[in-house]
């Protein structure tokens, strides 16, 4: 994993159908051509709206990590009850050998 600058850009990133298709692929969404066109327009509008905040003159204010004025919300290292395994696995589409059964995995382990 590498570090990087997570500050939001102040200009709205130009978003086209290629980026929308890329993001859809990462999220394993299958979009029709119509949907791709429609969502590209909608996402561009949403990004443009969010970018208006970037126009604000905020001087030297540091970016906030979180909107709530809180930090160091912590719990003690004490075990708590877990869920019943049969109940949990009964909610899964498929289970085998007390484990979740998932389709064959394509691609790399992250």
């Amino acid at each position, binding site marked *: 994993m590498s570090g990087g600058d997570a500050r939001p850009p102040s200009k709205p990133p130009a978003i086209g159908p290629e980026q929308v298709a890329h993001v859809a692929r990462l999220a394993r969404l299958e979009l029709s051509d119509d949907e791709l066109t429609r969502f590209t327009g909608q996402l561009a509008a949403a990004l443009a709206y969010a970018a208006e905040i970037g126009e604000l003159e905020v001087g030297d204010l540091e970016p906030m990590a979180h909107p709530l004025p809180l930090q*160091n919300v912590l719990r003690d290292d004490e*075990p708590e009850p877990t*869920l019943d*395994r049969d109940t949990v696995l009964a909610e899964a589409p498929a289970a085998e050998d007390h484990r979740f059964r998932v389709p064959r995995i394509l691609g790399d*382990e992250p």
Partner: protein
Amino acid sequence: MTDTGLAQGWEMVIGLEVHCELATRTKLFCGCPNAFGDEPNTNVCPVCLGLPGSLPVLNRHAVELAMRIGTALHCEIRPSTFHRKNYFYPDMPKDFQISQYDAPINTGGRLELPDGSTVGIERAHLEEDTGKTTHIGGTGRIGGADYALVDYNRAGVPLVEIVSAPDVRSAAQARAYAGELRSILIATGASDGRMEEGSMRVDANVSVRRHGEPLGTRCEIKNLNSMRSLLRAITFEADRQVAQLESGERIVQETRHWDEGEGRTLSMRSKEEANDYRYFPEPDLVALVPDSRWQADVAASLGPLPAARRAILVGLLGGEPSPAQIDQIRSVVASDLDAIVTSACELGAPPALALARTANEVAANADRAASLDAGSFAKLLALESGGELSATQAKEVLAGLLANGGDPAEIAKTLGFESMRADDLAAVVAGVIDAHPGEWEKFADGDPKVAGFLTGQVMKASGGKANGKAVAAELARLRSGAGT
């Protein structure tokens, strides 16, 4: 570290990423037990299963262990935040992993190796572990399996990922780094450091270059489950890259999997596009800001680190330790057994013997080491160094001591190890001299080569009860008598 084993004119550049599971009782963001080897999917709850409406809350002890690691590695401990690393893979039910991205808790440290070299630490950040996926059917390889089974007991277990600077220049130095880091993780109480159980996992970024040239293209090697794998994989990978470059080909940046059985690294490349994790701030967690007082408390809670503990053992020995003793000191401290040596020495045990018995016999039975009483151990060492027990006998008594405890003298008696009385020994030695007059003459003339032969004959005649030192002393006494 100049001998890299690499072809003439080439140099390795290695950076290491070590994932360490923290020794907490519970997971990073929920109260599920953090336990290795439990029945699958028994340590799960709405948070670590990513069920809708559940919220993560950070484990204070995990933060403290991360701070201990940072302190031990001379890092700066900083205000930090958590991000979501998004990816589509069933080892995380949420489809993202909570990790630290641009604001990790520890940055910019260093690790000093026993040989005096230093490796920079870029960062040591907190993140959650993933579940365990088992691929079933087909070739057993990830892409060729029929389906997979997932156990989420490990999902959410706290990890610290320690990223080194690309300062390592040989496979041996990489192993020394991993070994020293492991000692520090154990010494700080941050982790049990068990590579075979996955508590400590190492990935290596390896590239090669001709001396003085800029950095080459690197490959990341995964699946290094032991120190031996680490050494072999880096050696193989660097040789592979040199051969490729010397034949005019170029190196493709990729992830490669170490195959221990085949003894080589294999490309994990697939047709899939490059990873794009779309990191964004985790909205369910607020910033983590360890103030100076908390940092000072953590620093104060740290005991002496391995380097300082090795120095204490060197001091006990007094004088320059032999290469064998340097190895013993390293292994005793790495296995957290040095307190046994120091307490036995405080009770008067001879340091060299205490160190040797701890590094060998006690370490071989490390599971029982905690129950070894320092007083009994010191008494045993006194019996051995005083010549009342031979080395072989002392090892057997020590095995009994480790297994059941008790009084070493009593155990020796039960095992029939009555120490040989001086006049009994003198009689046996005299008998051996009578039986081997030629050898005795040579010995008396100062030929040291026959000393071993005569000692061996005495041991044999005494049925193993004689103590080697006492035999040598008796032979020397008789020789000086013979000379006058």
